């Protein structure tokens, strides 16, 4: 086996380990959420979705930042592996944002009767989702590998710069059109159990993110060595 392929295999194995750990951690978070964390007064059981919803948003944001960072590094260093890593992160990121975008409306409809609200977190994640779609669609449409890497890097960087503007737009929109503050945990102070569960959730999802990306990246590297392309990556 060539050295590159064995390195790819090691990456996949390592990623699978992290993934398993992450899934176990996520299962642990479910248990914590259901049995350990106190019930929220107004929302009841439905509020527990938050412990999946918020970490998923966090995962999407991490994935997106990695795509942006890897894109900058790629344009600077021209290392193909950075491009493969960015694309793997994008694929994982789109999955996380879809989790967030499905749990959000489920939560919203159950508790407040509305499927959607334009609050800061949902809107931002929606935009991350659209940017991931644009990024992956572009990759699918460019056959030449070098060109694909350059174009993806440009979109990745521009997407990263766009995020603060989306944030600012939502902020301006909401200060001028005050809306009920939805989909937030009971402010101002969260009971320590809730905070701990939330942080555990974020830890679990971070492990999941790392695991998924490593597996995906390993697969992409292996395909690369063989001269094939593994779907969009």
């Amino acid at each position, binding site marked *: 086996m060539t050295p590159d392929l064995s390195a790819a295999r090691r990456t996949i194995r390592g990623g699978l380990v992290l993934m398993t750990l992450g899934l176990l951690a996520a299962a642990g978070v479910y248990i914590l959420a259901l049995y350990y964390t106190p019930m929220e007064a107004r929302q009841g059981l439905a509020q527990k979705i938050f412990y999946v919803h918020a970490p998923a948003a966090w995962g999407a944001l991490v994935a997106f930042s990695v795509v942006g960072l890897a894109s900058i590094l790629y*344009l600077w260093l021209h290392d193909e592996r950075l491009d493969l890593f960015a694309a793997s992160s994008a694929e994982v990121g789109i999955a996380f944002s879809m989790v967030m975008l499905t749990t959000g409306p489920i939560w919203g409809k159950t508790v407040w009767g509305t499927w959607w609200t334009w609050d800061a977190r949902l809107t931002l994640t929606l*935009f991350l989702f*659209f*940017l991931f*779609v*644009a990024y992956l*669609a*572009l990759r699918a*449409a*460019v*056959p030449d590998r*070098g*060109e694909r890497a*350059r*174009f993806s*890097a*440009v*979109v990745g*960087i*521009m*997407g990263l*710069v*766009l995020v603060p*503007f*989306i944030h*600012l*737009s939502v902020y*301006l*929109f909401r*200060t*001028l059109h005050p809306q009920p503050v939805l989909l937030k945990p009971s402010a101002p102070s969260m009971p320590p159990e809730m905070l701990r569960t939330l942080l555990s959730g974020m830890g679990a999802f971070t492990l999941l993110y790392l695991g998924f990306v490593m597996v995906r990246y390993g697969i992409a590297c292996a395909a690369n060595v063989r001269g094939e392309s593994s779907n969009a990556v």
Partner: protein
Amino acid sequence: MPDMLRLAFAIAAKDIRLELRSRTALLSAIVFSALVLVVFNFARDPTALAAIDLAPSVLWITFAFGAVIALNRAFYVERENAALDGILMAPVPRSALYVGKLLANLAFVGVVEAVALPLFVLFFNVSMGHALPGILGVTALATVGFVAVGTIFSAMVVRTRFAELMLPVLLLPFMVPPLVGAVQVTARLLAGRPLSEMEGWLRLLTAYDIVFVTLCILVFPAVVDE
């Protein structure tokens, strides 16, 4: 710097001359915008919503769609006979190429907007009068923003499959801040609100323009250089 501007103007002038010769993209963009306005007019119930409430959104959606149609042509014209290679081989800084294309695109989108705006006033019976200078100003400000991003994306998509589909997919997320800002400011201008209410949005639009034009100039070489 003067060299860069001279070259940018030369490239923009060449693009404008080319478009005046063939007129295809410009005409289709104008006709498309007119059609969008007509559809909006028939689609709304005049008794349910006052024109003035809907006006800013309709106007800016029309501008946005028209712009996307017009933007598609920018680098398409460079594909014939590998004309782009001719420019890249010459001692032309890539920033000059980008700025030249940006200027030409601004001219085209500007023409589309200049035709769409009076049509809009006509169809929707909106009185602009006092608000007109402000509306022209915010139109210019927002247009620079999404044309800047649209120019660089059109350079990319021209080499992909499904180019006409890829451009909106890439561009629309980036059009949201300038569009939202423009709609908000236009609505307030039409309602005669004081400037203080629009300050935040105007700052957003200006910041967006400065940041993205600069960023596009910086990353453009990665798009055209192999």
